[in-house]
């Protein structure tokens, strides 16, 4: 339960911090940290425009997408405290329930019959497919290392002791951060601020959404970030008592948001054709983690 509250709080500030960092880095003052939330509230109050091509799929998809993210949030633990749902193999449920949301957001994009939205849908499907093995190899390695199969037990049993395990934690952070970037369609895979439909991924899929539905999609995006942030935090806090764990949760989330802001300020997005290579390379980083785990467990003997 604790994790849900923390994730929601983090989600409220996360995107605001990214935007603020980007503004500061480019020498502007920038909007307040709560501006994204104000945008969402404004969207909830607005009316909607539906495309005449669309069917009920288009209307229900944002709801399912949002619910899937909520559901994924429920299985994320926080250090000692379990997630609301915690069971063996819950990380599989986590990945698959997010995939359900993706399925519906993709077909909603196809529902508009637009020439652009299908493009974004196709890319979203392709990139998240490529990111899938990285996540599963990472979780499989952690399961091997800890001897457990649920998020909570895996993270509670992770002890960062030797030098190799520091390296592993760093690599795992990198993989999770990059998966978060892919899933949330940020740089270097996708640029949320681009104005050209041909180069968009996530933004182009939601061109026709408006009002309440768009608000749901935005909120889900904010939550997704905080969820992946929470997973990264979990790599480190392990058995640390709450009075230290909770501040470090916010510190790490803050750090993550700032670093995303900095990455987006100083880096150009990849060429579209280079994205798959980059994402597949993540899998090899995951394999590195796996071999590191084998080293720690001395399975090579």
């Amino acid at each position, binding site marked *: 339960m604790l994790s849900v509250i923390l994730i929601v709080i983090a989600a409220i500030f996360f995107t605001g911090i990214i935007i603020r960092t980007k503004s500061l880095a480019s020498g502007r003052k920038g909007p307040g940290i709560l501006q994204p939330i104000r945008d969402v509230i404004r969207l909830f109050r607005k009316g909607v425009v539906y495309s005449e091509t669309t069917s009920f799929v288009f209307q229900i998809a944002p709801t399912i997408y949002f619910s899937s993210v909520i559901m994924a949030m429920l299985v994320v633990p926080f250090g000692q405290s379990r997630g609301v749902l915690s069971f063996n193999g819950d990380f599989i449920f986590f990945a698959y329930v997010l995939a359900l949301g993706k399925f519906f957001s993709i077909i909603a994009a196809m*529902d508009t019959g637009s020439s652009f939205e299908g493009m974004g849908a196709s890319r979203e499907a392709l990139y998240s497919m490529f990111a899938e093995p990285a996540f599963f190899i990472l979780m499989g390695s952690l399961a091997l290392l800890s001897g457990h199969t649920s998020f909570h037990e895996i993270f509670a049993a992770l002890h960062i002791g030797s030098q190799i395990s520091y390296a592993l934690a760093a690599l795992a952070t990198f993989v999770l951060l990059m998966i978060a970037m892919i899933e949330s369609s940020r740089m270097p895979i996708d640029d949320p601020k681009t104005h050209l439909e041909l180069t968009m991924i996530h933004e182009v899929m939601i061109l026709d959404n408006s009002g309440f539905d768009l608000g749901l999609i935005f909120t889900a995006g904010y939550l997704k970030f905080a969820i992946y942030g929470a997973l990264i935090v979990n790599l480190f806090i392990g058995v640390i008592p709450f009075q230290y764990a909770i501040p470090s949760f916010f510190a790490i989330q803050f750090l993550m948001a700032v670093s995303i802001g900095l990455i987006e300020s100083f880096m150009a997005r990849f060429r579209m054709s280079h994205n798959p290579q980059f994402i597949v390379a993540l899998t090899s980083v995951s394999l590195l983690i796996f071999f590191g785990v084998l080293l720690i467990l001395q399975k090579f003997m």
Partner: protein
Amino acid sequence: MVNVSWIVTLLAIFALFFVPSNYKAYTAAFAVVINSLITSWLAFPALSGQIVELSIFAGTFLGDIAIRIDGLSAWFIVIINFTSVTGVFYGIGYLKAYNNPPPKLTLHWSLFILFHLSMVWVCMLQNGFAFLLAWELMSLTSMLLVIFDHNNAQTLKAGINYLVQMHISVVFLTLGFIWVYSSTGSFSFDAIRIFFQSNNNTWLFLVFFVGFGLKAGFIPLHSWLPHAHPAAPSHISGVMSGVIVKLGIYGIFRIITFLNSDFILLGEIILSLSVLTGIYGILNASVHRDFKRMLAYCTIENIGIIGIGIGIGMIGIGNGSAIMYFLGFGGALLHVLNHSLFKSLLFYSAGSVFQQCHTRNMEHLGGLIKFMPKTASVFLIGAVAIGGLPPFNGFVSEFIIYIGLIEGIHSNNLSQILLFVLSLAGLSVIGGLSVLTFTKTFGVIFLGQPRTEPEHKPHEVSKLMLVPQYVIIAVMLSVAFIPQFYMQIIGNVLMEMNPVFTDMSSIVGYVNTISNISLYSLLLIGIVAAIWLLRAFVMKHRMQRIDATWGCGYVAPTSRIQYTGKSFSKPLGKILNFLLIENKHFDELKPGEIFPEKRNYFSHYHDFFERKLIDPIITRLNYSANYFSFIQNGRIQSYVLYGIVFILAMFILTVFNVVS
């Protein structure tokens, strides 16, 4: 009871010749239902652990044939019966739309009855010779069912392809049975067990695996599937894809029950092959635009997933791990059920689309959700379920296989750990690709706007076609929400299958987890419902407007500018162009051509294994076979001569005691 079933079958086939063509389908349905009821009634006790043993006298040559229905047979029999019954009812509605001559219908429906019965018999017979007879009957009837549309050259070609490949399968199976016979002197299945106890296990198993794998569609033995499934009428493809390929899986399971050693080696072979099969199948499914061919490739993918479960289970037996045994085989058996459900569902709804639109090319379709909302919803449910996404049944069996893999990671053997981690990654790729495949298929066929002007407006199909699909969905939901019921049955089957693992207590935790997951799925549905209600409440006071799709400033869009299925999967095809071989046909613009004429461009994907492995072999075989064409010269006189020469040779050799 078995006799009643035969009598009903014969009477029904006899009656089919006389009833008016409107009622032929109903006669067949009646016979299929009666046969299903009888055989299910025979099989039900076996599901709860009571093995049914019968014996029938089959003439002086075969003698008494043992019929034995254990849990494994019963599980497959029930699946066969269910899918055949839904198939026959869907088929009534499906064929009604076409004007077929009565003799053709008579033949078709008689074959369907025999086809169903032969599949059931394959699961019951415990004698190699009788088994092969039933197997052959099944292959022949299904081949004749595939070429229903025999005026089409493509269909005939696909049928012959199927026939030939099935006979290669029979050759391997016969070889296996003869091998056992030459060593033990018996065709009965128990002899296989005796053979395995005293001989090397690997080679005989692999011979059987090739035989059964051809039916199941493991790569590189899969190449009949993408031809036969699109060619067959949809109710046949539904049944074929739903259950006939599963009989290959049944055969593999059956042989595994007789195995005595080499579990780890064979399990590793099956596991690796299955991961590759799964990835290969879904990769091809994602690029194909003939939606029935795409479903056929998707069947190959699901065979891969089932095979992963089988591999885990075999390694589990080898390691002495009850958890892996139950999770692997249990996941595989549950996925057999699940796949038979959603694949027949998808083939039926795809058949409804074909019946209304007369094309299998999804690039000509679009926007069908407005004309056929029920079919579209059914297809959507099937698509979500086959992607293994919660809250449907596909997730349950894939989840079991996943946790089987993760259990495997905890083993002590380095090569096994590697294999399991890579399989985990492979299975996740399969999941990701099936999202891509089915969003594309559903999106292109049902959403957006029609891409070409249809000849006549498609409309929703008849109730007779929809009701079987609703029934399938009901069973799918029962698997999704009360999985513990099915897990219990599978547990019984598995405890009976292996004498070592007779205790399910090691996986009680997992069974609870799995039944909890169905509660979590309900929670997910609850959250969706709550947000939907909230949305409805909020939207009541908001302005709603219907307008054109955002066209980026372009104000005269046509349906031609929509994203197509080809372009949807093109990035993937481009990345993996070494595996997904694309052939393009177009005329280059000539240098001097000032006013370009209208020109055509089309491209299609080839099957890698067919192109690189099977075709070259066939070409070379044809080349060398040409030299012997003087033997098969088409003159009856020569053929009679061969017979005489053979008889003379036998006579002379016997006289001189060369053969006895």
